[in-house]
Protein backbone atom coordinates (compact mmCIF):
# COMPACT_ATOMS: atom_id res chain seq x y z
CA UNK A 1 0.00 0.00 0.00
CA UNK A 2 1.36 3.40 -0.91
CA UNK A 3 1.24 5.94 1.85
CA UNK A 4 0.30 8.74 -0.51
CA UNK A 5 -3.07 7.29 -1.39
CA UNK A 6 -4.10 6.61 2.18
CA UNK A 7 -6.18 9.12 4.03
CA UNK A 8 -5.61 7.45 7.36
CA UNK A 9 -2.85 5.02 8.24
CA UNK A 10 -2.64 3.84 11.83
CA UNK A 11 0.48 1.88 12.67
CA UNK A 12 1.05 -0.09 15.85
CA UNK A 13 -1.04 2.26 17.94
CA UNK A 14 -0.97 1.45 21.64
CA UNK A 15 -3.07 3.32 24.18
CA UNK A 16 -3.28 2.39 27.83
CA UNK A 17 -5.35 3.69 30.70
CA UNK A 18 -3.29 3.80 33.84
CA UNK A 19 -5.58 3.18 36.80
CA UNK A 20 -5.28 2.10 40.38
CA UNK A 21 -6.44 -1.41 39.61
CA UNK A 22 -3.95 -1.88 36.80
CA UNK A 23 -2.92 -0.86 33.31
CA UNK A 24 -5.88 -1.13 30.97
CA UNK A 25 -4.61 -2.19 27.55
CA UNK A 26 -7.37 -0.46 25.64
CA UNK A 27 -5.64 -0.42 22.27
CA UNK A 28 -2.74 -2.76 21.63
CA UNK A 29 -0.61 -2.55 18.49
CA UNK A 30 -3.48 -1.54 16.30
CA UNK A 31 -3.08 -1.29 12.53
CA UNK A 32 -5.72 0.21 10.30
CA UNK A 33 -5.93 2.02 6.99
CA UNK A 34 -8.50 4.06 5.19
CA UNK A 35 -8.40 5.43 1.68
CA UNK A 36 -9.96 8.66 0.42
CA UNK A 37 -13.68 8.37 -0.11
CA UNK A 38 -13.89 5.04 1.69
CA UNK A 39 -16.30 4.00 4.35
CA UNK A 40 -14.79 1.86 7.04
CA UNK A 41 -16.87 -0.07 9.50
CA UNK A 42 -15.11 -0.53 12.79
CA UNK A 43 -16.76 -3.40 14.59
CA UNK A 44 -16.30 -4.88 18.01
CA UNK A 45 -18.04 -5.49 21.29
CA UNK A 46 -18.30 -2.87 23.99
CA UNK A 47 -14.96 -2.47 25.61
CA UNK A 48 -12.96 -3.68 22.65
CA UNK A 49 -11.24 -0.34 22.30
CA UNK A 50 -13.04 1.24 19.36
CA UNK A 51 -13.92 4.53 21.03
CA UNK A 52 -10.45 4.80 22.48
CA UNK A 53 -8.99 4.43 19.00
CA UNK A 54 -11.29 7.16 17.73
CA UNK A 55 -10.35 9.43 20.60
CA UNK A 56 -6.74 8.67 19.87
CA UNK A 57 -7.13 9.88 16.32
CA UNK A 58 -8.76 13.08 17.54
CA UNK A 59 -6.18 13.58 20.24
CA UNK A 60 -8.94 13.55 22.84
CA UNK A 61 -7.87 10.61 24.99
CA UNK A 62 -8.51 11.87 28.53
CA UNK A 63 -5.07 12.51 29.82
CA UNK A 64 -4.95 11.74 33.44
CA UNK A 65 -5.76 8.09 33.05
CA UNK A 66 -5.12 7.64 29.32
CA UNK A 67 -1.76 7.60 27.64
CA UNK A 68 -0.62 6.92 24.10
CA UNK A 69 2.20 4.48 24.58
CA UNK A 70 3.40 4.25 21.03
CA UNK A 71 2.64 4.00 17.35
CA UNK A 72 1.77 6.41 14.56
CA UNK A 73 -1.43 7.91 13.27
CA UNK A 74 -0.77 9.17 9.78
CA UNK A 75 -3.45 11.46 8.43
CA UNK A 76 -2.85 12.63 4.88
CA UNK A 77 0.71 11.53 5.39
CA UNK A 78 1.37 13.43 8.64
CA UNK A 79 1.69 11.86 12.07
CA UNK A 80 -1.05 13.30 14.25
CA UNK A 81 0.67 12.14 17.41
CA UNK A 82 3.52 14.46 16.70
CA UNK A 83 1.42 17.54 16.22
CA UNK A 84 1.14 20.37 18.72
CA UNK A 85 -2.11 21.00 20.55
CA UNK A 86 -2.78 24.07 18.47
CA UNK A 87 -2.33 22.16 15.25
CA UNK A 88 -4.64 19.45 16.52
CA UNK A 89 -7.29 22.04 17.36
CA UNK A 90 -7.25 23.18 13.76
CA UNK A 91 -7.66 19.64 12.60
CA UNK A 92 -10.46 18.80 15.03
CA UNK A 93 -13.68 19.81 13.44
CA UNK A 94 -11.92 21.25 10.45
CA UNK A 95 -10.46 18.15 8.86
CA UNK A 96 -11.53 15.34 11.15
CA UNK A 97 -14.91 15.57 12.81
CA UNK A 98 -16.42 13.17 15.31
CA UNK A 99 -19.92 12.40 16.43
CA UNK A 100 -20.49 10.58 19.67
CA UNK A 101 -22.84 7.98 20.87
CA UNK A 102 -25.43 9.61 23.05
CA UNK A 103 -27.20 12.56 21.45
CA UNK A 104 -29.12 13.28 24.64
CA UNK A 105 -26.01 14.51 26.39
CA UNK A 106 -23.81 15.63 23.52
CA UNK A 107 -25.26 19.10 23.19
CA UNK A 108 -24.72 22.01 25.55
CA UNK A 109 -28.05 22.48 27.32
CA UNK A 110 -27.79 26.23 27.71
CA UNK A 111 -26.86 27.18 24.14
CA UNK A 112 -29.24 27.43 21.21
CA UNK A 113 -28.56 24.95 18.43
CA UNK A 114 -27.66 27.55 15.84
CA UNK A 115 -24.99 28.97 18.10
CA UNK A 116 -23.57 25.53 18.64
CA UNK A 117 -23.24 24.95 14.92
CA UNK A 118 -22.00 28.49 14.36
CA UNK A 119 -19.28 27.94 16.93
CA UNK A 120 -17.91 25.14 14.80
CA UNK A 121 -17.97 27.34 11.71
CA UNK A 122 -16.29 30.25 13.44
CA UNK A 123 -13.49 28.09 14.72
CA UNK A 124 -12.33 27.02 11.31
CA UNK A 125 -13.39 29.79 8.97
CA UNK A 126 -12.68 33.46 8.87
CA UNK A 127 -16.24 34.73 8.84
CA UNK A 128 -18.44 37.04 10.85
CA UNK A 129 -20.82 35.75 13.46
CA UNK A 130 -23.76 36.63 11.29
CA UNK A 131 -22.38 34.59 8.41
CA UNK A 132 -21.71 31.69 10.75
CA UNK A 133 -25.30 31.74 11.97
CA UNK A 134 -26.45 31.78 8.36
CA UNK A 135 -24.36 28.77 7.64
CA UNK A 136 -25.76 27.13 10.76
CA UNK A 137 -29.26 27.55 9.43
CA UNK A 138 -28.19 26.06 6.11
CA UNK A 139 -26.77 23.05 7.90
CA UNK A 140 -29.98 22.64 9.86
CA UNK A 141 -31.95 22.51 6.67
CA UNK A 142 -29.46 20.10 5.21
CA UNK A 143 -30.09 17.66 8.04
CA UNK A 144 -33.84 18.09 7.76
CA UNK A 145 -34.60 20.55 10.55
CA UNK A 146 -36.69 23.63 9.82
CA UNK A 147 -34.89 26.97 9.95
CA UNK A 148 -37.43 28.33 12.40
CA UNK A 149 -36.07 26.04 15.07
CA UNK A 150 -32.62 27.54 14.93
CA UNK A 151 -33.07 29.45 18.17
CA UNK A 152 -34.39 26.48 20.10
CA UNK A 153 -32.53 24.73 22.88
CA UNK A 154 -31.44 21.10 22.72
CA UNK A 155 -34.01 19.91 25.22
CA UNK A 156 -36.73 20.98 22.84
CA UNK A 157 -35.71 18.36 20.30
CA UNK A 158 -36.30 14.62 20.25
CA UNK A 159 -33.41 12.15 20.34
CA UNK A 160 -33.31 11.64 16.60
CA UNK A 161 -33.37 15.35 15.91
CA UNK A 162 -30.67 16.01 18.45
CA UNK A 163 -28.48 13.55 16.61
CA UNK A 164 -29.19 15.39 13.38
CA UNK A 165 -28.01 18.58 15.05
CA UNK A 166 -24.89 16.74 16.11
CA UNK A 167 -24.34 15.64 12.53
CA UNK A 168 -24.93 19.20 11.34
CA UNK A 169 -22.24 20.41 13.72
CA UNK A 170 -19.82 17.76 12.61
CA UNK A 171 -20.24 18.38 8.90
CA UNK A 172 -20.44 22.17 9.08
CA UNK A 173 -16.87 22.63 7.92
CA UNK A 174 -16.83 19.91 5.29
CA UNK A 175 -14.35 17.67 7.07
CA UNK A 176 -12.27 15.22 5.13
CA UNK A 177 -12.89 12.45 7.63
CA UNK A 178 -15.91 11.82 9.79
CA UNK A 179 -15.67 9.43 12.70
CA UNK A 180 -19.06 8.29 13.91
CA UNK A 181 -19.02 6.46 17.24
CA UNK A 182 -22.14 4.31 17.36
CA UNK A 183 -24.28 7.24 16.25
CA UNK A 184 -27.51 5.29 16.23
CA UNK A 185 -27.13 2.96 19.18
CA UNK A 186 -29.10 5.21 21.47
CA UNK A 187 -31.94 5.74 19.03
CA UNK A 188 -35.08 3.83 18.16
CA UNK A 189 -34.79 1.49 15.24
CA UNK A 190 -36.97 3.55 12.93
CA UNK A 191 -35.12 6.74 13.74
CA UNK A 192 -31.93 4.81 13.30
CA UNK A 193 -32.79 4.14 9.68
CA UNK A 194 -33.54 7.81 9.06
CA UNK A 195 -30.31 8.99 10.58
CA UNK A 196 -28.28 6.45 8.66
CA UNK A 197 -29.90 7.48 5.44
CA UNK A 198 -29.14 11.09 6.23
CA UNK A 199 -25.53 10.26 6.86
CA UNK A 200 -25.38 8.30 3.64
CA UNK A 201 -26.70 11.24 1.59
CA UNK A 202 -24.61 13.86 3.26
CA UNK A 203 -21.50 11.83 3.00
CA UNK A 204 -21.84 11.72 -0.66
CA UNK A 205 -22.78 15.38 -1.02
CA UNK A 206 -19.88 16.60 1.00
CA UNK A 207 -17.53 13.84 -0.06
CA UNK A 208 -16.36 12.86 3.40
CA UNK A 209 -14.66 9.63 4.24
CA UNK A 210 -16.26 7.78 7.11
CA UNK A 211 -15.18 5.59 9.95
CA UNK A 212 -18.33 4.08 11.36
CA UNK A 213 -17.87 2.55 14.77
CA UNK A 214 -20.59 0.08 15.54
CA UNK A 215 -21.37 -3.29 16.99
CA UNK A 216 -24.19 -3.82 14.55
CA UNK A 217 -23.22 -5.89 11.54
CA UNK A 218 -26.40 -4.87 9.76
CA UNK A 219 -25.29 -1.25 9.67
CA UNK A 220 -21.95 -2.35 8.37
CA UNK A 221 -23.55 -4.29 5.57
CA UNK A 222 -25.54 -1.26 4.55
CA UNK A 223 -23.06 1.53 4.82
CA UNK A 224 -19.50 0.36 4.67
CA UNK A 225 -17.05 -0.54 1.93
CA UNK A 226 -14.51 -2.07 4.25
CA UNK A 227 -14.72 -3.59 7.69
CA UNK A 228 -12.23 -3.94 10.52
CA UNK A 229 -13.10 -6.31 13.34
CA UNK A 230 -11.62 -5.39 16.67
CA UNK A 231 -11.02 -7.63 19.63
CA UNK A 232 -9.26 -6.81 22.90
CA UNK A 233 -7.53 -3.78 21.52
CA UNK A 234 -6.39 -5.18 18.20
CA UNK A 235 -7.75 -5.48 14.71
CA UNK A 236 -8.17 -9.17 14.07
CA UNK A 237 -9.70 -9.10 10.64
CA UNK A 238 -9.84 -6.46 7.91
CA UNK A 239 -11.55 -6.91 4.57
CA UNK A 240 -13.93 -5.43 2.05
CA UNK A 241 -17.48 -5.87 3.30
CA UNK A 242 -18.49 -8.47 0.81
CA UNK A 243 -15.41 -10.56 1.52
CA UNK A 244 -15.94 -10.38 5.26
CA UNK A 245 -19.56 -11.39 5.15
CA UNK A 246 -19.06 -14.22 2.71
CA UNK A 247 -15.72 -15.50 3.86
CA UNK A 248 -15.22 -14.66 7.53
CA UNK A 249 -11.88 -16.08 8.51
CA UNK A 250 -10.89 -15.16 12.03
CA UNK A 251 -12.59 -17.40 14.63
CA UNK A 252 -13.95 -14.34 16.41
CA UNK A 253 -15.57 -13.03 13.24
CA UNK A 254 -16.94 -16.44 12.60
CA UNK A 255 -18.37 -16.51 16.10
CA UNK A 256 -20.00 -13.14 15.55
CA UNK A 257 -21.72 -14.27 12.41
CA UNK A 258 -22.74 -17.56 13.94
CA UNK A 259 -24.45 -15.84 16.80
CA UNK A 260 -26.84 -14.03 14.50
CA UNK A 261 -29.98 -16.10 14.53
CA UNK A 262 -31.11 -17.27 11.13
CA UNK A 263 -34.61 -16.06 10.26
CA UNK A 264 -35.32 -19.10 8.25
CA UNK A 265 -34.18 -21.84 10.51
CA UNK A 266 -35.71 -23.12 13.67
CA UNK A 267 -33.17 -22.92 16.42
CA UNK A 268 -33.54 -23.90 20.02
CA UNK A 269 -30.57 -22.07 21.47
CA UNK A 270 -28.62 -19.04 20.42
CA UNK A 271 -25.07 -19.86 19.51
CA UNK A 272 -22.80 -17.78 21.67
CA UNK A 273 -19.09 -17.47 21.79
CA UNK A 274 -18.08 -19.28 24.94
CA UNK A 275 -16.23 -17.43 27.64
CA UNK A 276 -16.00 -13.75 28.45
CA UNK A 277 -14.16 -10.74 27.10
CA UNK A 278 -10.71 -10.75 28.62
CA UNK A 279 -9.80 -8.49 31.52
CA UNK A 280 -8.08 -5.55 29.86
CA UNK A 281 -5.64 -5.24 32.73
CA UNK A 282 -4.61 -8.81 32.30
CA UNK A 283 -4.77 -9.86 28.67
CA UNK A 284 -4.11 -13.48 27.77
CA UNK A 285 -0.67 -14.31 26.42
CA UNK A 286 -0.22 -14.81 22.70
CA UNK A 287 -3.45 -14.41 20.77
CA UNK A 288 -5.95 -12.60 23.00
CA UNK A 289 -8.79 -14.76 21.69
CA UNK A 290 -7.20 -18.14 22.26
CA UNK A 291 -9.01 -19.01 25.54
CA UNK A 292 -12.34 -18.81 23.78
CA UNK A 293 -11.28 -20.16 20.42
CA UNK A 294 -12.52 -23.54 19.25
CA UNK A 295 -9.60 -23.84 16.87
CA UNK A 296 -6.78 -22.84 19.17
CA UNK A 297 -3.49 -24.59 18.66
CA UNK A 298 -0.61 -24.80 21.12
CA UNK A 299 1.24 -21.96 19.48
CA UNK A 300 -1.73 -19.65 19.95
CA UNK A 301 -1.02 -19.14 23.61
CA UNK A 302 2.58 -18.16 23.09
CA UNK A 303 2.84 -16.28 19.81
CA UNK A 304 1.00 -13.07 19.02
CA UNK A 305 -0.40 -13.69 15.54
CA UNK A 306 0.50 -11.25 12.79
CA UNK A 307 -2.00 -10.00 10.22
CA UNK A 308 -1.83 -12.33 7.23
CA UNK A 309 -3.10 -11.34 3.81
CA UNK A 310 -5.19 -14.34 2.96
CA UNK A 311 -6.63 -12.80 -0.18
CA UNK A 312 -5.99 -9.47 -1.94
CA UNK A 313 -7.13 -6.81 0.49
CA UNK A 314 -8.38 -9.35 3.04
CA UNK A 315 -6.31 -9.65 6.24
CA UNK A 316 -6.81 -11.87 9.25
CA UNK A 317 -4.71 -12.39 12.35
CA UNK A 318 -5.04 -16.11 12.62
CA UNK A 319 -2.47 -18.52 11.30
CA UNK A 320 -4.66 -21.47 12.14
CA UNK A 321 -7.67 -20.47 10.07
CA UNK A 322 -5.88 -18.44 7.44
CA UNK A 323 -6.30 -21.13 4.87
CA UNK A 324 -9.99 -21.66 5.52
CA UNK A 325 -11.23 -20.40 2.18
CA UNK A 326 -8.38 -21.50 0.00
CA UNK A 327 -9.58 -23.89 -2.68
CA UNK A 328 -6.60 -26.18 -2.95
CA UNK A 329 -5.36 -26.98 0.55
CA UNK A 330 -3.97 -29.67 2.70
CA UNK A 331 -6.02 -30.69 5.70
CA UNK A 332 -6.80 -27.73 7.93
CA UNK A 333 -5.01 -27.28 11.22
CA UNK A 334 -6.07 -29.68 13.91
CA UNK A 335 -9.15 -28.53 15.67
CA UNK A 336 -9.02 -28.76 19.43
CA UNK A 337 -12.32 -29.47 21.01
Amino acid at each position, binding site marked *: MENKKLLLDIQDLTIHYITE*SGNVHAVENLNLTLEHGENLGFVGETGAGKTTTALGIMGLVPNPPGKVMGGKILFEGEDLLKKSERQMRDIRGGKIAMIFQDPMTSLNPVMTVDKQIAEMVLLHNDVTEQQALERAQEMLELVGIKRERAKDFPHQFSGGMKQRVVIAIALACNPTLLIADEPTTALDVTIQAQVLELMHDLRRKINTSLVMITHDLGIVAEMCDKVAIMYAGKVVEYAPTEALFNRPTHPYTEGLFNSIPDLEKDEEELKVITG*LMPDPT*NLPSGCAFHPRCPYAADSCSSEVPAMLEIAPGHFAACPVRAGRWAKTEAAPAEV*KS
Partner: protein
Amino acid sequence: MSAQAPVKMKSEAGLLDIWNRLRKNHLALFGLVIVVLLVFFAITADFIAPYRYDQQNLMKAFESPSKEHFFGTDEFGRDIFSRIIHGSRISLQVGMIAVGIAVVFGGLLGSVAGYYGGRIDNLIMRAMDILLSIPSILLAIAIAASLGPGLYNMMVAVGISSTPQYARIIRGSVLSLRGQEFVEAAKAVGSSDTRIILKHIIPNCLAPIIVQSTLGVASAILTAAGLSFIGLGIQPPTPEWGAMLSGGREYIRDYAYMTIFPGLAIMITILALNFLGDGLRDVLDPKLKR
Protein backbone atom coordinates in the same frame (compact mmCIF):
# COMPACT_ATOMS: atom_id res chain seq x y z
CA MET B 1 -6.59 -24.78 26.21
CA SER B 2 -4.98 -22.55 28.73
CA ALA B 3 -7.22 -21.15 31.40
CA GLN B 4 -7.55 -17.42 31.67
CA ALA B 5 -6.45 -15.79 34.89
CA PRO B 6 -9.49 -15.46 37.19
CA VAL B 7 -11.16 -12.07 37.04
CA LYS B 8 -10.29 -10.01 40.09
CA MET B 9 -13.38 -9.47 42.21
CA LYS B 10 -13.94 -5.95 43.41
CA SER B 11 -13.85 -5.90 47.18
CA GLU B 12 -17.25 -5.65 48.77
CA ALA B 13 -18.44 -2.68 50.74
CA GLY B 14 -17.93 -4.35 54.08
CA LEU B 15 -16.89 -2.53 57.19
CA LEU B 16 -13.28 -3.52 56.69
CA ASP B 17 -13.25 -2.12 53.20
CA ILE B 18 -14.72 1.15 54.40
CA TRP B 19 -12.03 1.37 57.04
CA ASN B 20 -9.32 0.70 54.48
CA ARG B 21 -10.56 3.35 52.15
CA LEU B 22 -10.93 5.85 54.95
CA ARG B 23 -7.42 5.16 56.05
CA LYS B 24 -6.05 6.37 52.77
CA ASN B 25 -7.52 9.82 53.34
CA HIS B 26 -4.95 11.40 55.60
CA LEU B 27 -7.04 14.35 56.54
CA ALA B 28 -9.95 12.18 57.57
CA LEU B 29 -7.61 10.04 59.60
CA PHE B 30 -6.26 13.11 61.32
CA GLY B 31 -9.83 14.10 62.06
CA LEU B 32 -10.60 10.71 63.51
CA VAL B 33 -7.56 10.80 65.76
CA ILE B 34 -8.49 14.21 67.10
CA VAL B 35 -12.06 13.16 67.72
CA VAL B 36 -10.94 10.06 69.56
CA LEU B 37 -8.58 12.18 71.60
CA LEU B 38 -11.38 14.57 72.44
CA VAL B 39 -13.65 11.78 73.55
CA PHE B 40 -10.83 10.51 75.69
CA PHE B 41 -10.39 13.93 77.27
CA ALA B 42 -14.09 14.24 77.81
CA ILE B 43 -14.33 10.95 79.60
CA THR B 44 -11.19 11.28 81.68
CA ALA B 45 -11.34 15.03 82.27
CA ASP B 46 -11.63 14.68 86.00
CA PHE B 47 -8.43 12.68 86.15
CA ILE B 48 -6.36 14.36 83.50
CA ALA B 49 -6.97 18.00 84.22
CA PRO B 50 -4.35 19.30 86.66
CA TYR B 51 -6.84 21.60 88.34
CA ARG B 52 -10.59 21.70 88.85
CA TYR B 53 -12.40 23.87 86.37
CA ASP B 54 -13.91 26.08 89.01
CA GLN B 55 -10.87 26.32 91.22
CA GLN B 56 -10.35 29.98 91.79
CA ASN B 57 -7.16 31.52 92.99
CA LEU B 58 -7.42 35.26 92.79
CA MET B 59 -3.83 35.78 93.67
CA LYS B 60 -2.78 33.99 90.54
CA ALA B 61 -5.16 35.68 88.17
CA PHE B 62 -4.05 36.70 84.70
CA GLU B 63 -0.94 34.58 84.63
CA SER B 64 0.60 33.97 81.24
CA PRO B 65 1.12 30.44 80.02
CA SER B 66 3.76 28.72 82.08
CA LYS B 67 4.84 25.29 83.17
CA GLU B 68 2.39 25.35 86.00
CA HIS B 69 -0.47 26.63 83.94
CA PHE B 70 -0.03 25.52 80.36
CA PHE B 71 -2.52 27.96 78.97
CA GLY B 72 -2.32 30.53 81.69
CA THR B 73 -5.06 31.60 84.09
CA ASP B 74 -8.16 33.65 83.66
CA GLU B 75 -9.51 36.59 85.58
CA PHE B 76 -10.42 34.40 88.53
CA GLY B 77 -7.15 32.56 88.61
CA ARG B 78 -8.66 29.43 87.14
CA ASP B 79 -6.39 27.24 85.06
CA ILE B 80 -7.37 27.66 81.46
CA PHE B 81 -5.88 24.36 80.34
CA SER B 82 -8.05 22.44 82.78
CA ARG B 83 -11.07 24.42 81.78
CA ILE B 84 -10.46 23.63 78.17
CA ILE B 85 -10.17 19.94 78.90
CA HIS B 86 -13.41 19.98 80.85
CA GLY B 87 -14.89 22.03 78.07
CA SER B 88 -14.38 19.15 75.70
CA ARG B 89 -16.88 17.17 77.69
CA ILE B 90 -19.41 19.97 77.46
CA SER B 91 -18.89 20.51 73.77
CA LEU B 92 -19.13 16.85 72.91
CA GLN B 93 -22.19 16.47 75.06
CA VAL B 94 -23.87 19.41 73.43
CA GLY B 95 -22.90 18.24 69.98
CA MET B 96 -24.05 14.69 70.40
CA ILE B 97 -27.26 15.41 72.24
CA ALA B 98 -28.26 18.19 69.88
CA VAL B 99 -27.58 16.00 66.88
CA GLY B 100 -29.28 13.12 68.63
CA ILE B 101 -32.42 15.17 69.06
CA ALA B 102 -32.27 16.33 65.48
CA VAL B 103 -31.74 12.83 64.12
CA VAL B 104 -34.49 11.28 66.16
CA PHE B 105 -37.11 13.92 65.52
CA GLY B 106 -35.95 14.72 62.03
CA GLY B 107 -35.75 11.04 61.26
CA LEU B 108 -39.21 10.40 62.55
CA LEU B 109 -40.73 13.29 60.68
CA GLY B 110 -38.75 12.61 57.54
CA SER B 111 -39.48 8.92 57.35
CA VAL B 112 -43.18 9.37 58.05
CA ALA B 113 -43.36 12.10 55.44
CA GLY B 114 -41.42 10.14 52.88
CA TYR B 115 -43.09 6.84 53.48
CA TYR B 116 -46.72 7.89 53.56
CA GLY B 117 -46.47 10.71 51.11
CA GLY B 118 -49.51 12.69 50.13
CA ARG B 119 -51.00 15.11 52.60
CA ILE B 120 -48.96 14.02 55.55
CA ASP B 121 -45.85 14.61 53.51
CA ASN B 122 -47.09 18.02 52.46
CA LEU B 123 -47.97 19.06 55.96
CA ILE B 124 -44.70 17.96 57.47
CA MET B 125 -42.62 19.50 54.73
CA ARG B 126 -44.48 22.81 54.92
CA ALA B 127 -43.67 22.89 58.61
CA MET B 128 -40.04 22.13 57.86
CA ASP B 129 -39.96 24.84 55.21
CA ILE B 130 -41.19 27.33 57.74
CA LEU B 131 -38.46 26.33 60.13
CA LEU B 132 -35.91 26.41 57.36
CA SER B 133 -36.81 29.92 56.36
CA ILE B 134 -35.25 31.08 59.58
CA PRO B 135 -31.47 30.75 59.42
CA SER B 136 -30.65 28.03 61.93
CA ILE B 137 -28.43 30.08 64.20
CA LEU B 138 -31.22 32.59 64.52
CA LEU B 139 -33.73 29.90 65.27
CA ALA B 140 -31.45 28.51 67.94
CA ILE B 141 -31.10 31.98 69.39
CA ALA B 142 -34.83 32.53 69.42
CA ILE B 143 -35.51 29.17 71.06
CA ALA B 144 -32.72 29.58 73.56
CA ALA B 145 -33.91 33.09 74.41
CA SER B 146 -37.34 31.73 75.10
CA LEU B 147 -36.32 28.65 77.04
CA GLY B 148 -33.94 30.51 79.26
CA PRO B 149 -30.34 29.96 80.22
CA GLY B 150 -28.85 26.59 80.90
CA LEU B 151 -26.87 23.85 79.28
CA TYR B 152 -29.78 21.54 78.58
CA ASN B 153 -31.96 24.29 77.20
CA MET B 154 -29.18 25.13 74.83
CA MET B 155 -28.92 21.54 73.65
CA VAL B 156 -32.64 21.47 72.96
CA ALA B 157 -32.47 24.78 71.12
CA VAL B 158 -29.64 23.68 68.88
CA GLY B 159 -31.27 20.30 68.39
CA ILE B 160 -34.60 21.68 67.31
CA SER B 161 -33.01 24.18 64.98
CA SER B 162 -31.15 21.40 63.19
CA THR B 163 -34.13 19.08 62.88
CA PRO B 164 -35.43 20.31 59.50
CA GLN B 165 -32.22 19.42 57.69
CA TYR B 166 -32.31 15.85 58.91
CA ALA B 167 -35.99 15.58 58.13
CA ARG B 168 -35.23 16.61 54.57
CA ILE B 169 -32.35 14.22 54.11
CA ILE B 170 -34.14 11.24 55.55
CA ARG B 171 -37.27 12.00 53.63
CA GLY B 172 -35.21 12.04 50.46
CA SER B 173 -33.64 8.69 51.23
CA VAL B 174 -36.95 7.18 52.17
CA LEU B 175 -38.59 8.46 49.01
CA SER B 176 -35.99 6.89 46.81
CA LEU B 177 -36.05 3.64 48.72
CA ARG B 178 -39.78 3.41 48.94
CA GLY B 179 -40.10 2.77 45.26
CA GLN B 180 -37.62 -0.03 45.27
CA GLU B 181 -38.64 -3.59 44.99
CA PHE B 182 -37.53 -4.97 48.28
CA VAL B 183 -40.09 -2.75 49.96
CA GLU B 184 -42.83 -4.16 47.81
CA ALA B 185 -41.58 -7.60 48.60
CA ALA B 186 -41.73 -6.92 52.31
CA LYS B 187 -45.25 -5.63 51.96
CA ALA B 188 -46.27 -8.66 49.98
CA VAL B 189 -45.09 -10.87 52.80
CA GLY B 190 -47.28 -8.92 55.18
CA SER B 191 -44.78 -6.80 57.12
CA SER B 192 -46.39 -3.90 58.90
CA ASP B 193 -45.45 -0.39 57.94
CA THR B 194 -43.57 0.22 61.13
CA ARG B 195 -41.59 -2.90 60.66
CA ILE B 196 -40.72 -1.96 57.12
CA ILE B 197 -39.58 1.47 58.17
CA LEU B 198 -37.50 0.24 61.04
CA LYS B 199 -36.01 -2.86 59.57
CA HIS B 200 -35.59 -2.04 55.91
CA ILE B 201 -35.65 1.62 55.17
CA ILE B 202 -33.73 3.12 58.03
CA PRO B 203 -30.69 0.84 57.73
CA ASN B 204 -30.39 1.89 54.11
CA CYS B 205 -30.48 5.56 55.01
CA LEU B 206 -27.60 5.13 57.38
CA ALA B 207 -24.88 6.41 55.09
CA PRO B 208 -26.16 9.95 54.61
CA ILE B 209 -27.23 10.06 58.25
CA ILE B 210 -23.75 9.19 59.45
CA VAL B 211 -22.14 11.78 57.22
CA GLN B 212 -24.60 14.48 58.13
CA SER B 213 -24.34 13.66 61.82
CA THR B 214 -20.59 13.99 61.89
CA LEU B 215 -20.79 17.34 60.17
CA GLY B 216 -23.80 18.13 62.32
CA VAL B 217 -21.93 17.66 65.58
CA ALA B 218 -19.42 20.16 64.27
CA SER B 219 -22.01 22.76 63.45
CA ALA B 220 -23.89 22.08 66.69
CA ILE B 221 -20.75 22.78 68.68
CA LEU B 222 -20.23 25.94 66.65
CA THR B 223 -23.77 27.09 67.21
CA ALA B 224 -23.59 26.33 70.89
CA ALA B 225 -20.37 28.27 71.21
CA GLY B 226 -22.02 31.12 69.39
CA LEU B 227 -24.96 31.05 71.75
CA SER B 228 -22.70 31.06 74.76
CA PHE B 229 -20.74 33.87 73.24
CA ILE B 230 -23.74 36.16 73.26
CA GLY B 231 -24.72 35.10 76.73
CA LEU B 232 -27.44 32.58 76.06
CA GLY B 233 -27.14 29.08 77.34
CA ILE B 234 -24.20 28.35 79.55
CA GLN B 235 -24.03 29.79 82.97
CA PRO B 236 -20.72 30.43 84.68
CA PRO B 237 -18.65 28.76 85.91
CA THR B 238 -19.35 26.05 83.34
CA PRO B 239 -16.24 25.93 81.15
CA GLU B 240 -17.82 26.08 77.72
CA TRP B 241 -15.36 27.19 75.09
CA GLY B 242 -17.59 29.84 73.55
CA ALA B 243 -18.33 31.35 76.93
CA MET B 244 -14.64 31.35 77.74
CA LEU B 245 -13.99 33.22 74.53
CA SER B 246 -16.63 35.74 75.36
CA GLY B 247 -15.29 36.21 78.84
CA GLY B 248 -11.80 36.75 77.57
CA ARG B 249 -12.80 39.45 75.13
CA GLU B 250 -12.65 42.20 77.71
CA TYR B 251 -9.05 41.50 78.41
CA ILE B 252 -7.89 40.91 74.90
CA ARG B 253 -5.47 43.78 74.78
CA ASP B 254 -3.27 42.51 77.52
CA TYR B 255 -4.17 38.88 77.96
CA ALA B 256 -4.85 37.64 74.48
CA TYR B 257 -4.19 34.02 75.41
CA MET B 258 -7.51 33.96 77.23
CA THR B 259 -9.29 34.07 73.92
CA ILE B 260 -6.76 32.33 71.72
CA PHE B 261 -6.83 28.95 73.42
CA PRO B 262 -10.57 28.42 73.64
CA GLY B 263 -10.93 29.56 70.04
CA LEU B 264 -8.18 27.20 68.96
CA ALA B 265 -9.91 24.37 70.76
CA ILE B 266 -13.15 25.08 68.95
CA MET B 267 -11.47 25.40 65.63
CA ILE B 268 -9.46 22.20 65.86
CA THR B 269 -12.50 20.27 67.00
CA ILE B 270 -14.64 21.57 64.17
CA LEU B 271 -11.87 21.04 61.65
CA ALA B 272 -11.37 17.47 62.79
CA LEU B 273 -15.08 16.69 62.60
CA ASN B 274 -15.34 18.30 59.18
CA PHE B 275 -12.40 16.34 57.81
CA LEU B 276 -13.84 13.17 59.22
CA GLY B 277 -17.29 13.93 57.87
CA ASP B 278 -15.95 14.74 54.42
CA GLY B 279 -13.87 11.61 54.44
CA LEU B 280 -16.85 9.51 55.45
CA ARG B 281 -18.88 11.05 52.68
CA ASP B 282 -16.25 10.16 50.11
CA VAL B 283 -16.09 6.63 51.36
CA LEU B 284 -19.75 5.89 51.97
CA ASP B 285 -21.20 7.49 48.90
CA PRO B 286 -19.72 5.66 45.93
CA LYS B 287 -21.22 8.03 43.39
CA LEU B 288 -19.37 11.05 44.57
CA LYS B 289 -15.92 10.26 43.28
CA ARG B 290 -13.82 13.36 43.59
